[in-house]
Each structure stands twice: as structure tokens, then as C-alpha cells.
């Protein structure tokens, strides 16, 4: 079920198993039949840890969504609340508990706080007079969730907003805790590098926690050689650009949530049904996307322009494999063929699915709108006319294209120009407010606060220097057989990944100047290993680096890092961790403010 997690360089299944074990332990603590009341936000992340079957094995009979009023009746002994530690939720729980039917046989209440219990919330429950109604108040430490064999995510939607806009560093605390858990399982990480304020904060907390835990940790041989902590605001540009890998485009177009994507159903109608009835499925088709699917693992990180070729090659291989049956003469050969059938059929249906998805996406990438948008993005990234009003943006506003699209472009222009001239900025802002409504003044203010939009200071625009030094734009990008990470954006090499690449070789000392231009401090820390745990590297053995993106990472960046891992001479393999997988749209959305509508 989650075996794909164990195949990577680092066996992340250990982490998942540890999380499952904790969950089972808690469930068994509440003996007897139970109903879980879910904080809806948690169901997605939990899906990555445990399916319903696990819960069922531990006598979970009903599941409800947390909402006001009273909990639906269920003949169970226990009611278990799975919630984040938030005051609003405490109020709802208090209401639930208070309105419990006194006539029914009493049920035991339990709370499981995810990822950590909170004094503040318990205080609130106390004030509401329900704290004593709970038999168990516990915490379920779920910080880093294994997302794929080389990918960990905290699935924390708002962490960028909280850290950079609201100055609330709660998610950084969870990050540090999560990294401590990781170190408990996979050994102390001897080297920590970082860039950015948040990275510094997390590293400080980690070092302190290490002192706190001193003596209690069981020493294990370190699996990771290096940890690199990167603030998202060190590289604000990358998420704004349209991702051009297969997985990146699926995310841009349809959005991937907790590893699942919902697709329009029409393309996926079963062939057999076509004969029977005309009724097409109306429910969106839900697909899980991860490396457990062989074909997907193969194509997800390719530039979309190389996907077609890969799919047709695969199609040939599969049909050749099916042709084999004609060659199977002896009983033994037939038996062998049959034994491979399930695998082949799975491969065929996987191929069919991805061919359909690729067709859907191709319709979009070949459209004029997509092309024009991409052209403008690439102009900005190469530094063409970033200091003038962009006609394309103007036209898009005039036609009232989706606001997020506009915001992505304007922000991109601002970032690529190290801020816009006050007059230009005001012009864009005014156009946006007049077209999309005055309420967006709050959103624009937010974007300014996090630095995505800013008036140009007297300082000279340093983006061109950064671009040139870090080789962020590569003219001769090979999309089919890439030789550089820039293939993921068909020319633009993501800054964050470039920093990672340069850290491994030749080291950051060579780019001191550029690092100083990027926001926040950069630093290096060493963590002492217990004697006898120093890894003896075999000649030719790769180093393993954990790259942690604070504030989110895009699928294209992940793809670029995977590409680096696979490069023959890179010498480093990367495991990626993040607070959340994001794309430009979901990212900007998280920064928007929607004042509540007037009540009339």
C-alpha cells in the first residue's frame, strides 16, 4: 500500500510506520467502539498516513465532520475529536459536548490534538466548563508526512502566510519539531545550511532542542549528510512562473491536493460503457499520483513537450508485451505470460489514464492564451521591458481575466525588476481595484507586505546580476534530453534549486555576493555526532541532502532536484521536505484577503 515509500534513497516508510504506530496506540487507549469527529482540514493529510481500514481495525465505526450543534447519534462508546489546536474549533467542541443528549447512555469524549496539544486550547475548554468531560486529551505528533519516496510535506496550507505576513512562527516550531523527529529516526544531521530569516529561526530552535533532548536520543548512524533550509522568500520568483513539467502542469491546471487530483470525467469514460449507455460519469475522476505508479514515476518530471514521446514509446512496449502471447507455445510460457498479466493490465490502464490527462493538458498548452502568457513570463524572466507597463497585462485586466493570473504576472514583473516604479505600481493597482473591486486593496497590501509587490527603492535593480551569476536563464534548453535543471521551466532554472546545486558544488563561498543580495542571512551550522557514528563513505557513494523549503515548494522544483539526484556526476541525492506543495495560484490565493460580504 505504501511500499513505494521504501524504495527511495532514504526509507521514508519508517516515518510513516512510526506515525501509524502512534495512531494505533492512541486509538487503543480509548477502548471500545468509537466515532471520530474530524476537523475537516485534517482528513487529507491523514489519508497519507492511514486508510479507513486501519481505523476500522481499531473499532472506529463512524466518522463525522466537526460542526456546531450536537454530534449525530451513534451507538458507540467513545467520541474522539481529531482537531488542530485552534480556539474556534474548541468553541465548536464545547458546543458539541454541552449539547450531548443526557438521556442516551453516556459516551466517553477524547481529544486528539494534531500536531501538538495546546495549553491555550485546554484553557479555553476549561473556561467553557467542558474540560473535565474528556477522558483522554492527547497529542498526535504529525509534522512531516511522507508524501512520496523522496518527498515530505507538512501539508500546512497557510504556513507562508503565517510566517511572512502575520509573523506567526507556529509552523516553524512544528518544522523544527518535525526535523527533530526525523533525526530521532534517521540520526543527527551533521551539517546544516540555510538561507533566510525563517531558516535561521528553525536552525536555532533545532540546535536548542538538540541540547534539550541531549542524552535521551538513541544514537543512530546518520542517514542524511546535510540539511539545507531555504526560505520561500529567498526565491519568490519560481512559484510565480508557470510550471512546465508534466506533474507541474497537472497541478497548475487541475490542482493536486494531498496527492490526489480531480479530473473532468468525460475523457475517462470506460470504453465498454460507450456501447451500453450514453450517460457519462458526472463525478470528477479522482486519481492518486505518486511513484507507486511506474509510468507516472517515469514521466512526471519530464518537460511536458517530452511526455508525448515517452507515452508513445511506452505504448509500443506494452502492446509488444501483449503480442508476446502469440509466441507463447508451451504451457510453461503461457503460464509465465499469464503471471505477468495483472502487471501488464495495470500498466495499460495507467497508460490510458495518462494519455487522457496529457491530451487534456495539451489542449491548454497549445492554446493562444497559454502561449501569450508564457511569452510574457519569459520576457520578464529574461529581463525584457520589466520597467514599463506591460501591454499584455493591461489587455488581460481590460478583459477581466482571472484576478490571480493578473496578480501572478504583476508580482513577477515586480520581482524581476526588484520592485516597480511607484507610478507603475500605482497604475497596476488602480487598474486592478477598478476592475476587480476595491476590496482587493487588502490583498494588494498583503502582497506588498510579503515583498511580492514593492515600489522600487533607490537601489539598483539587482535581478540581472542574480540572473547572470546564477545562470537562471539558459538559452539552449533541451526539453527532451535535459542537461540542466532549466528544462522544468523551458529555460528558467529555478533560483532555489540553483542555490541547492551550487551548495553541493562548488559551495556557497563562490556566490557570497549574490547571497548577500537575497533576503535574510545565510549560515552554516555543524551538529556534533556521538563518537563512533561518523559515516565512512564508500568511494563513489553519494551524499544525501535534505532540502527543506519553508513556505512551500512547487512540483517543478521537486522535479529539478530529482533531476540533480539522477545526474551521474552530481554526487548528491536529494530528499525534499516542505511545509506545503504549492503553485503560483494556490500560493497567491493563500495571501488573499476576502473581507466578509455585507449582510444586505
Amino acid at each position: 500500500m505504501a511500499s513505494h515509500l521504501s524504495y527511495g534513497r532514504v526509507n521514508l516508510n519508517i516515518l510513516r510506520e512510526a506515525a501509524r504506530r502512534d495512531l494505533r496506540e492512541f486509538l487503543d487507549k480509548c477502548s471500545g467502539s468509537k466515532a471520530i469527529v474530524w476537523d475537516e482540514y485534517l482528513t487529507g493529510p491523514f489519508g497519507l498516513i492511514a486508510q479507513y481500514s486501519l481505523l476500522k481495525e481499531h473499532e472506529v465505526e463512524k466518522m463525522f465532520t466537526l460542526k456546531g450543534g450536537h454530534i449525530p447519534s451513534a451507538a458507540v462508546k467513545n467520541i474522539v475529536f481529531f482537531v488542530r489546536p485552534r480556539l474556534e474549533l474548541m468553541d465548536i467542541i464545547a458546543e458539541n459536548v454541552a449539547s450531548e443528549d443526557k438521556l442516551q447512555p453516556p459516551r466517553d469524549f477524547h481529544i486528539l490534538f494534531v500536531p501538538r496539544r495546546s495549553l491555550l486550547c485546554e484553557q479555553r475548554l476549561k473556561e467553557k466548563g467542558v474540560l473535565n468531560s474528556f477522558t483522554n486529551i492527547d497529542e498526535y505528533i504529525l509534522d512531516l508526512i511522507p508524501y512520496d519516496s523522496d518527498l515530505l510535506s507538512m501539508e500546512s496550507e497557510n504556513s507562508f502566510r503565517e510566517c511572512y505576513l502575520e509573523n506567526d512562527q507556529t509552523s516553524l516550531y512544528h518544522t523544527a519539531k518535525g526535523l527533530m523527529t526525523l533525526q530521532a529516526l534517521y540520526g543527527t544531521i551533521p551539517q546544516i545550511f540555510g538561507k533566510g530569516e525563517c531558516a535561521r529561526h528553525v536552525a536555532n530552535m533545532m540546535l536548542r532542542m538538540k541540547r534539550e533532548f541531549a542524552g535521551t536520543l538513541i544514537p543512530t548512524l546518520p542517514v542524511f549528510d546535510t540539511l539545507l533550509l531555504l526560505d520561500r522568500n529567498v526565491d519568490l520568483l519560481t512559484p510565480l512562473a508557470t510550471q512546465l513539467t508534466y506533474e507541474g502542469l497537472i497541478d497548475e491546471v487541475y490542482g493536486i491536493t494531498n496527492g490526489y487530483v480531480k479530473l473532468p470525467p468525460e475523457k475517462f469514460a470506460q470504453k465498454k460503457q460507450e456501447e451500453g449507455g450514453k450517460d457519462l460519469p458526472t463525478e470528477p475522476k479522482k486519481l492518486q499520483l505518486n511513484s507507486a505508479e511506474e509510468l507516472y514515476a517515469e514521466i512526471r518530471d519530464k518537460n511536458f513537450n517530452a511526455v508525448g514521446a515517452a507515452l508513445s514509446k511506452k505504448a509500443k512496449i506494452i502492446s509488444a508485451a501483449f503480442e508476446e502471447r502469440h509466441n507463447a507455445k508451451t504451457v510453461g510460457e503461457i503460464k509465465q505470460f499469464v503471471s505477468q498479466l495483472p502487471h501488464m493490465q495495470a500498466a495499460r490502464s495507467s497508460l490510458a489514464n495518462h494519455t487522457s490527462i496529457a491530451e487534456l493538458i495539451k489542449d491548454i498548452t497549445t492554446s493562444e492564451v497559454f502561449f501569450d502568457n508564457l511569452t510574457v513570463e519569459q520576457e520578464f524572466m529574461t529581463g525584457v521591458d520589466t520597467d514599463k507597463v506591460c501591454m499584455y497585462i493591461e489587455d488581460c485586466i481590460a478583459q477581466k481575466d482571472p484576478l490571480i493570473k493578473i496578480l501572478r504576472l504583476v508580482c513577477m514583473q515586480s520581482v524581476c525588476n526588484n520592485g516597480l516604479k511607484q507610478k507603475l505600481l500605482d497604475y497596476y493597482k488602480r487598474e486592478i481595484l477598478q476592475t476587480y473591486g476595491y476590496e482587493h486593496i487588502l490583498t494588494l497590501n498583503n502582497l506588498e507586505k510579503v515583498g511580492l509587490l514593492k515600489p522600487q527603492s533607490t537601489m539598483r535593480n539587482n535581478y540581472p546580476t542574480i540572473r547572470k551569476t546564477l545562470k537562471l536563464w539558459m538559452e539552449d534548453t533541451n526539453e527532451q534530453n535535459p542537461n540542466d535543471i532549466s528544462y522544468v521551466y523551458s529555460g528558467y532554472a529555478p533560483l532555489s534549486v540553483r542555490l541547492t546545486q551550487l551548495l553541493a558544488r562548488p559551495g556557497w563561498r563562490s556566490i557570497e555576493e549574490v547571497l548577500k543580495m537575497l533576503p535574510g542571512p545565510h549560515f552554516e551550522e555543524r551538529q556534533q555526532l556521538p563518537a563512533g557514528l561518523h559515516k565512512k563513505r564508500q568511494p563513489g557513494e553519494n551524499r544525501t541532502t535534505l532540502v527543506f523549503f519553508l513556505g512551500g515548494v512547487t512540483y517543478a522544483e521537486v522535479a529539478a532536484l530529482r533531476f540533480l539526484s539522477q545526474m551521474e556526476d552530481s554526487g548528491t541525492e536529494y530528499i525534499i521536505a516542505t511545509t506545503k506543495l504549492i503553485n503560483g495560484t494556490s500560493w497567491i490565493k493563500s495571501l488573499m484577503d476576502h473581507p466578509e460580504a455585507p449582510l444586505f
Partner: protein
Amino acid sequence: MAFVTANWNPLGEAFYRKVELFDMSWTLKEGLRECLIAAAPYGGPIALLKGFQRRSPSTRPQLEIYSSSGVPMASFPWKSGLVKQLGWTVSDDLLCVQEDGTVLVYDLLGGFKRHFSMGNEVSQSQVMETKIFHSPYGTGVAILTGALRFTLATNIDDIKLRRLPEVPGLDGAPTCWAVLSQDRQSKVLVANGSHLFILDNTSCTPVTPPGLSPQASSVLHMCVSFSYKYLALLTDSGHVWMGTSNLKEKVSEVDTSIRTPPKQMAWCRRPKSQQSSVVIMWDRLLLVVGECKETIQYLLDSDSVLVPEMDGVRIINETHHELLQEVPVACEEIFKIASMAPGALLLEAHKEYEKESQKADEYLREIKEQNLLAEAVKQCVEAAGHEYEPETQKTLLRAASFGKCFLSNFPPELFVSMCRDLRVLNAVRDYTVGMPLTHTQFKQMTIQVLIDRLVHRKLYPLAIEVCRYLKTPEYQGVSRVLKHWACYKVQQREESDEVIARTVNMRLADASGISYSEIATKAYESGRTELAIKLLEYEPRSGEQVPLLLKMKKSPLALSKAIESGDTDLVYTVVMYLKNELNRGDFFMMLRNQPVALSLYRQFCKHQELDTLKDLFNQDDDHQELGNYYVKASYKEPRLEARVSLLQSAVDEFYKAKNEFAAKATEEEMRLLRFQRKLEEEKSEPLVGFSLHDTITALLSVGLHKHAEQLYKDFRVSDKRFWWLKLKALAEKGDWEELEKFAKSKKSPIGYLPFVEVCIKHHNKHEASKYVSRVTPEQKVKAHLAVGDLQSATEAAIERRNESEIITVLSRCSATTDVILVERLNRAKATAAKK
């Protein structure tokens, strides 16, 4: 060596030996007479209460505590009530049960810890007899009251009093009784004359021991073995009955022919031994009774006390402290006269080897021929563990080591760990420490408990030595000892805060996993707040510091520590505490100096207390945020006037914040709202809340062109935007006539291709073609293609000699129907490419 067996006495199959543990270093004026005495098992301390029955205040009884070797540890006059019984808990605390049922708890250095009561019933009818017992649940107290009822508490750390049922026919003190631990329950076995009863929570069951001698008419004494498995009864006929404590099986019965009641009786049995025996003590006689008719008799020359242990009985008197035990099998095998056991032969071989005699080889051969060398080594190691004299231990270990040389793959752990254990045991057996533990007891109590006991005795250096020597993980070993030491240290009043803090930190510096907050709490509890704060400075876990700091009312420090920990929940906790503790002004001031706390509190207010949020911004003169606050608030306001007035407040704030753009934009919004409202009233079109763009669109779609035009001018909408907007609105409405008029009104700032495309989007090819001619040459091809005019598109493309446009047109041509066009285009493409 020859005398190892000198103190052995045979009893049936087994031997018993009495080993001298200590010459007592105490000097007791009146001996052990007339005093209550309690000695803890596992070589624990001894408590004496002299003259315990004295009540006059002029001559108070004296309570004294000694180590097992008689070294005084505490002594003080007893000022409380009449004590009926002394006893020790499993964690080295002294229990003093008073007549009124109050139990006082002291530590082993005589410090008073607490007291508890055994209940009203007991205090009313007074304590007649009491027994202190140990079970897997802890230390328990059983009391027989003056009302002849039993009250029981199984664990004094979690007192649940149980009053047992009445014993039928009991009209005076029972002859004897004992506490049993069976089926996870503590029960009482009572003898009333010849009748025996077992009392549990709910019932009183009469029992009869199987095969009890018929001559007996009364049970005089009884005792239960250390493990609660066996029971011994002494009857008035002088018979000792031994059997299982569930009274189902008899092991043996021996006639002692002594009919006087004994002073004490105790089991003497080592775990897993086949032998059962009981030690019975009268005034001057000690009798070991086993399964055979014979007995061993020792004469006593002074008053003594028996202390039952898991593997023997200790005998304490005024001058001596001895251990009486069954000789362990390994020792017996090796030292028994003329033994041919492998261990004995190995010992002999080694002796000869030391003498440089070739006999050593003969002995060795003999063992090796039987393939018993490994067995021999094991025997020697094991026997060494059971010996009390270091010299004997060494001899045996040397023999074992010698034997090991002739074995190729004998695992070393056994030997090594025995050497280590013995080193520790010899150290704690020293009379200055006074813990005469046997190896069996040591293994049972575990190293953890041993360290605890050393700590209780404040023998910190020794405890640390032991931890280091046994390589106990730091967290459970050295660090724990140091923490206890520090907790003790901070209570020493004679030293100054600085000195203590420095000493503590110096000692603890290298130890990991130390909780300074625990030490600080101790300091605070003993009234040394300043010291506590100093110590907290050393605490690496900032989170741990916070609760204590709050308790000590050091809230600013608590806040900065909470922030330092990074745990936002902790910060919130302190902030909420401060909010209730301080007046508003001070509270805000404190937040102001702590930006992290301030922004968290803002988050809290945003969700919970909007008004406070405003006050916070006000205090900080954060006009931008105040402006935003008013903007947000305006959207919650259903009435337009209120909404506009909130926006006006926002404008004021934006100006103060020197954010001219925001101020102007807000003013514009206010104007728009007023306009929308006015028009809504006039034309009853819902408009309020729309964006400017949507307002104009709405106006156009209902034909209010004038008003739309007015907005366009008033709000200085850019031409481009207005043209797009009007184009789309009119096409949406299908007002083609108006659109045409509009197109002709003046030169379009967006060109005419949009006109073509928008018309096509609304499926009106006819209207679209009207605008094709007006499209700029660059966009002509696109326009022709948009209306599906391949012919003209071809013309235009060829005329412009633009390769990419030619290709675009080509891609739209069908190879079958547009043969001519394709041909022309291909030709043009070739020339264009050449150029």
C-alpha cells in the same frame, strides 16, 4: 580457604551457613531491650525507638536511625503520640504508626515528610497491632484495631483504606496474624486459637492447613515467606507446619518440642531452592527447621532481631550483624569436602598451578576429558558471586579466569559482569556505606534502585562512581544523581545564592539531560526565589522555565523565555496570563517590547477580539493597519452611511500613514458607492458593491450609456479598458447596432481585431466580417482566419511574405479541398524562407 566450610551446618540435603556481615559500630546503652526496632530488607537502614512506651514529657522516647552497619544517620526525641510500630517503605522511608492510627513518614535521615491517617474508625478504637508489608503495589499498612477489626491500605502512596469483614468468635486479640498477597489482593490470615481464617475484601473464610498435627490446639506464631508463596505455623504443641500460603499443600511438619511462644519467626529460603526452612527465635535460642527431623541450633548471647531477606535471614544484635542462609549450590559443589564437581577440580587445578605443580595439568585434563570446563568456569564465577569475603571471591575468579584460558569461545560477559557487580557490591558493603547486599538481592533490586538508595543516603560521589563504572546511560545514571545532589544543595542555607548557583552549574555542566527547572523548583519551594531564577538561566529547555517563572511572578522573564523556546502555544499561554494579571496599559507596553508576542496576540485578537486589535494598532500608531482595519470593518456594515463613514476613517488613517494611493483609492470607492446608491434608487438596478468595471458593464447592459460614459470620465478609466469593456458588454447583450456605432465613434485604442474576435465568440460571423477591413495589416491574417476566410488570409499572408503567418494559414488548410491555396502558400513560403 580451608575454613570456608567451617561455619556450615548440614540440614537434610542442604547446608546452612552464618556469615558475619558487620561488627556493629553503634553503642547501645540498653541493648535492644525495651525498644521498637525495624530494619529494612535489602540491607536497608535500621530504626530504633527507645522507651517507646514512655509518655511523660520529661523523658521522651528517642528515635534513632542507623545504617545496617550501625553507623548513626539520625537521632531525635519523639514528640508525637504513642508509636505502635515502625517500618520501612520500599523507597527507604520510615513509617511510624501511632496508636491513634496516624502514620508519620520520615526520610532515612530523619527529615519529616508527611503524615496520613488510617481512618476514623481506627482513630476511634485505637490501634492494637499493626504490620507493615510490601507487595508489588508498594508498601502497605495493616492494622488490627481495638474493636478487633482489620483495616488495610495496600499502597501508602495511593491510599485506599479497606476495612475487612469481622472474624467470627473473636473476643480478644487473636493469637497471631499475617498479611498474605494472593490473586493480586492483600489478605489477612488470622489465628484464633485453633481456628484459622482468611479475610479478604468481602469475606471471612475458615481454613484448615492440610495435615496439621492433631495435638495442636492453638497456633502460636506464623510467618509468610518473602515471596508470599509459603507459610509456616508454629503450634502450641511445638510443631512447625510448613506449606504453601494458599493452605492447599503441606511441605513438612517438624516437632521442635519447645512449647513456649517464640519471639520471632522467619522463612529462610533462597529462590529456586528445593529446600524449605524456617528460622525461629526464642530468648536465647535460634532454631533452623527444615524438612527433616533434625534441626540446627544456635545459641544467642543477647537480644536479637531477625530480618527476613529474599535469600536468607539477617540476625542483628547489640554487637553483631550476621546473615544466615542456605549455602548456594555452586558454593556447595566447590567447597564441599571431597567434592569432585568440575568447579571444585578447577579451583584445585588453579591452586596447583599457583604452586607451579604439574598436578594442575592432571586436574585440568580430568575436567576437559568430561567436557566440563565451561561448566567449571561458570560454577566458579557463580560461586564468587555468592561469597562475601573479597579474598574468596578473588580466588574463585582467578580460577575461573585460569579455566577460561583453555576454552576457545567462552562468552566473556558472564565473567566481566560478575567482576563489575562484585566491585560495586564490595563498595556498598563497606561499613561506611553499610548495605550488606547479596548478589541475588542486587540483581533483584536492579542498579537503578541501588543508585536511588545511595542518593537517599546522600552518597552522591559513590553513586556517580557506580554509574560511571557500570556505564549506566547518562540520562538514567550520572545526570539523575547530579540532579538529586543539586536539589539537596539548593536547600543548604548557609551558602549564598551565587556560590550555590555556580557550584551547581559547574558540577552539572557536562552532564546531559539535566532538568534545571526541577532544581529551581526545589530552590523556590525552600524560599529562594533569586537562586531559582539564577538556576533557570541554565535550563536548556526554555519551555520548562516558563511555568515556574510564572509561579514566581516573573512574568517578563517568562515571556521572553517562552519566545525563546519558539513554542507559540507557550507564548500564548504567558500572554493570556499577563492579560489577566496586568492592567491594560502595562500589558500593551510589555507586548510592545516583544514583537513576537505582539504579533501572536494580534492573531488572537483578529479571531477573538476585534476591538482590542484596533486598540493595539492605535497604541503603535500603525495607521496603515488601522486603515486596513476600517476597510475590513466597512464590509461588515450593512448600512451604506455607516460603511462610507468607516471608509472615511480609513482614508484619514491612510493619509496619516502617508499612503496616498490607498487614501485616493478609498475616496474613489466612497464616490463610487454614493453613485451606485443614487443610481440604484433612481433606476432600481442593483449596483452597490460592484467594482467600477462591473458597474459600467451593468449600466451598458441595461442601456444606460450616458451614465456609463459619466463613470468612464469621472473615474478616469483608461481608454483601452473602457473600449474592451464596452465591446464585451454590447456583444454580450447582442446590441450589434450600438456596437457598430461605437466602433465608428473614434479610432479604437485596442484596434479592431478584438471586435472581430468578440463577434466570433458570440457566433456572429456577419458582424465580425464588418470589422476585418479595419484591422491593422499585422493582424489581418489573424482576422481573416478568425472569420474563416482562408482565401483572404492566404492573400494577406503572401502579401506580407511572413513565413510564420504563412505556416499558420497552411495549418488551417485542408490538403484535399484547398489544393490551390496550399500550393500557392508553399511557393510563397519557399521564397520567404529564402529571404
